[in-house]
């Protein structure tokens, strides 16, 4: 037996960390489905915990880990392009409520970012944290590539995106009830606008109409944020 050769292989091959990553995510999906799709048990949250434990135990650095799983990261690009299709499929709904959609998209979209920034600022957070918070309501792939563009920390940005999604999905229905929201289209649009994909999953439980408007809001806000946010930040620097 050649233990040295085995150790050498294990520390150089990307396969080990690819397997741990894919396996943890699969385990996350199984647990999520077994828990009747409990919002708090998002597959990625479970996967996070397993991979993080594996990294801590093995002492492998993030840079080494990232190099091993870079091939997965690559697919964020085509996946972002792929988001055009669900947006296209739901675009027909835009005509029915064009003015409400556009006003809500811009007014609510911008004020939600400003509010999050303001709260961080009064509690004395650093600039890099504030920048990473600006993409918190858009879908994670666009948040990652946009945060890289504006000098924020992508991993922090993704963390904020996931937590924002979970909070929205958990409290959305209760908030809509308290406020007496009349239309499913409003509920769906708000969920997609603020809580992106995780909110859209919740909107699917409300109604088909809510799901369509949620997907619409998520696609539109992703594009609008990615286009305007870097320009606005450049303007202030």
């Amino acid at each position: 037996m050649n233990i040295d050769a085995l150790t050498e292989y294990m520390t150089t091959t990307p396969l080990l960390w690819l397997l741990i990553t894919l396996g943890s995510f699969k385990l996350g999906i199984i647990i999520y489905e077994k828990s009747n799709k409990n919002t708090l048990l998002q597959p990625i949250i479970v996967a996070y915990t397993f991979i993080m434990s594996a990294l801590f135990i093995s002492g492998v650095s993030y840079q080494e880990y990232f190099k091993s799983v870079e091939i997965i990261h690559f697919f964020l690009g085509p996946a972002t392009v792929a988001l055009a299709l669900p947006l296209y499929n739901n675009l027909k709904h835009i005509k029915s409520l064009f003015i409400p959609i556009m006003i809500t998209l811009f007014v609510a979209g911008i004020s939600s970012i400003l509010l999050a920034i303001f709260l961080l600022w009064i509690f004395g957070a650093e600039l890099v944290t504030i920048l990473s918070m600006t993409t918190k309501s858009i879908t994670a792939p666009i948040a990652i590539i946009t945060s890289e563009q504006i000098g924020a920390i992508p991993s922090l940005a993704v963390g904020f995106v996931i937590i924002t999604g979970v909070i929205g999905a958990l409290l959305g229905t209760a908030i809509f009830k308290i406020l007496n929201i009349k239309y499913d289209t409003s509920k769906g649009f708000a969920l997609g606008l603020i809580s992106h994909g995780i909110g859209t999953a919740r909107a699917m439980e409300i109604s088909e109409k809510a799901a369509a408007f949620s997907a619409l809001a998520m696609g539109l806000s992703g594009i609008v944020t990615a286009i305007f946010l870097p320009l606005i930040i450049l303007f202030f620097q």
Partner: protein
Amino acid sequence: MLKGIITLLIFQFIGECISKLFELLVPGAVIGMVLLLVFLIIRKSSFKSLDNAVLIHLRYLPLLFIPAAMGIITQLDIISKEFLAISISLVFSTIIALAFSAKLMDYLTIHSENKK
């Protein structure tokens, strides 16, 4: 499905090229997304191969951001130092934004239906 995958990659490639060429701040993949959307609007329909390619990318979407998301382990000092500010900002801005968006959309919808 190959045709669909090639379509996604071509649009990303064109988007990245445009972003670099014109020194745009918009990420190339987002430009690719907009171009694909315009392409679908002009074409007036999607095609099977593209549907499948999109499905496979979006079905496992959360998996794709794990490599970037794990970078959080290098940010533990920021998180522990600003834990309070981050938690308050996330919780309150999300609740208020969600309430405001739904109420605003509801108000505007009622308003526009009254006009009709």
